[in-house]
């Protein structure tokens, strides 16, 4: 789960990291009022969960409250990479001497958190990472010990930070580690961390991504989820314990198991079709769950055929078949359905479905070919 910039920076500030004075606004007049309170030059920043906001015109500098109002009106009417801007952050502008990058993420191959820093911070950090990775310093953190001060000090030295800032930098690095660790983040990033002309270190921008699997112990953070940035179908699916991702093809898929669901998408492509979605219904297949899944799949107008691929191991095939039939009775659709049931009680399941005039298949290859043909015939 991604947090907005203003949410991330608010968390950072609780860990002693200095952030610019400022507040979030949902209307242009609120934005103007904030600018009046702050006085001086301000920055208006669109709060959307995508990168490249600045390049899209979603971050603007303003000299007067009136200008803030005008710019906020424009930005609040924008869509950036398909996402509507619903909030803007109005921050005091900083006079920047230098931009630094500082972040922590999980390194899955080392199975440890890694702190990364670069003296080449700012909007082009991804380019730096690709073209001159040696400019990014990496320090692995023992998850049982946490970040040690000497590690933060070594980072400061490695990025040629002037010594007068070391003590402050170590505090910021420690704060970022604690925020990452306490919030169960998978990413906590300050970019840029700036040195101002009056020699202060300020986190101008912040980004956090939280581990969805850990939200059970952070109900306060879970409440910060931004529903606007997610597909409504994906939100609906989560309610039923389904894992759904919308794609652009014409063949809807309903599968038990994530790996098998991906393999099913792949084989559809192999036989000349395009999958309309990823959907893992998980273990068991009650009529209620199957019906919810089917409704979500069929809400996509591109879907021309649906492929069910269920491997009944512990889940019984006849139970799944009854679930599908009950769901069909409820959802009512003329879209062709291809069902492949394998494993425990699958013959019985297939018989039930054939009686209901659904297309059945025994192998995955056969099912995929039939679904592709059905989608083309429709």
């Amino acid at each position, binding site marked *: 789960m991604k947090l907005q910039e203003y949410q991330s920076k608010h968390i950072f500030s609780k860990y002693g990291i200095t952030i610019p004075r400022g507040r979030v606004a949902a209307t242009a007049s609120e934005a103007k009022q904030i600018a009046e309170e702050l006085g001086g030059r301000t920055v208006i920043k669109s709060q959307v969960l995508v990168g490249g906001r600045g390049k899209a015109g979603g971050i603007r500098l303003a000299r007067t409250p009136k200008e803030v109002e005008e710019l906020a009106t424009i930005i609040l009417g924008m869509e950036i990479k398909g996402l509507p801007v619903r909030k803007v952050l109005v921050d005091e502008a900083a006079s920047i001497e230098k931009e630094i990058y500082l972040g922590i993420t*999980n390194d*899955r*191959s080392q*199975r*440890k*958190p890694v702190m990364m820093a670069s003296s080449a911070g700012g909007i082009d950090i*991804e380019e730096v*990472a690709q073209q001159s990775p040696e400019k990014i310093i990496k320090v692995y953190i*023992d*998850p*049982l010990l946490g970040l040690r001060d000497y590690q933060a000090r070594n980072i400061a030295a490695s990025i040629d930070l002037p010594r007068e800032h070391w003590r402050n930098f170590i505090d910021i690095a420690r704060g970022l580690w604690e925020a990452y*660790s306490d919030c*169960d983040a*998978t990413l906590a990033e300050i970019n840029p961390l700036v040195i101002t002309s009056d020699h202060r270190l300020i986190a101008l921008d912040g980004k956090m991504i939280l*581990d*969805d*699997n*850990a939200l*059970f*112990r952070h109900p306060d953070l879970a409440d910060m989820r931004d529903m606007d940035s997610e597909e409504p179908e994906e939100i609906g699916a989560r309610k039923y314990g389904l*894992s759904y*991702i919308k*794609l652009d093809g014409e063949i809807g898929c309903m*599968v*038990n*198991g*994530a*790996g*098998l*669901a*991906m*393999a099913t*998408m*792949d*084989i*559809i*492509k*192999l036989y000349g079709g*395009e*999958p309309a979605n*990823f959907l*893992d219904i998980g273990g068991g297949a009650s009529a209620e769950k199957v019906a919810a899944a089917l409704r979500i799949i069929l809400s996509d107008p591109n879907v021309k055929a649906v492929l069910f691929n269920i*491997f009944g*191991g*512990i889940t019984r095939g006849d139970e799944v078949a009854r679930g599908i039939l009950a769901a069909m009775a409820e959802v009512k659709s003329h879209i062709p359905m291809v069902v492949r049931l*394998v*494993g*425990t009680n699958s013959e019985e399941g297939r018989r039930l479905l054939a009686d209901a005039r659904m297309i059945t298949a025994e*192998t*995955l*290859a056969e099912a*995929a070919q039939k679904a592709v043909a059905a989608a083309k015939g429709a």
Partner: protein
Amino acid sequence: MSILINKHTRIIVQGITGHEGLFHTQQMLAYNPATVVGGVTPGKGGEWVLDGKVPVFDSMKLAVETTGANVSVIFVPARGAADAIYEAADAEVPLIVCITEGVPVQDMMRVRNYLDQKKVRLIGPNCPGLLTPGEAKVGIIPGNIALPGNIGVVSRSGTLTYEVLYALKLIGLGSSTCVGIGGDPVNGTNFVDVLGMFEADPHTDKVVMIGEIGGTDEEKAAEFIADSMTKPVVAFIAGQTAPPGKRMGHAGAIIEGGSGLAADKVKALQLVGVRIAAHPEEIPNLLQE
């Protein structure tokens, strides 16, 4: 023969009185009654479950001391799973299999770094467990879909593994051991570990490896196969059609920053002579060629 588990395996089920734990204990008992020696649910020590066949203990320490168990299988919900792993490790069980899905990744990083300091192997989490056909089952792989044989199977996915075991069975092929290493980004055992065990096992002649998008474990497996394996390996990689930046069900199945693509994994494996199946049902044919 086999790797990791066999008919002499003595299993303790952590979370035995929960819905999942009890159901799968029954399945494991049915597969080989001699293998399940007890269970742990704190607060229910002294009870017996499944018609008095299996004793329940309050702690892993007590369970291991009493039964001499050498494997633990964990069905504890995600919020308690890391603690269950620490408890099993501190009770000196040499093999821990964690079925639980949804364990926070920071918990797993701490667990993994703790276990690396001990002589304990963890399989999973978020995995279907292990099956040595005809001998023992630890976890949730349906026993009836696999035959005993000489093919080692290692996989990041659950039902996709079942699919492959079943396809092998249909043409009379069986497996030495099937290992589900799980779909999480940080786990206890990776492809390289299991490939090494299959290479050393005299009763495994060929290996099937089932990977998916996310991370670089398949690429590391390719290096290991080139350097250290003599036995033929056939692979399938799921997620050719997966979009970048989206988590495909498994916490670890995500293409991030251009890394973890299925095409890169396929290429790395093909370069070292691994045959790649276009779809799972093609695997038996490739094994027979």
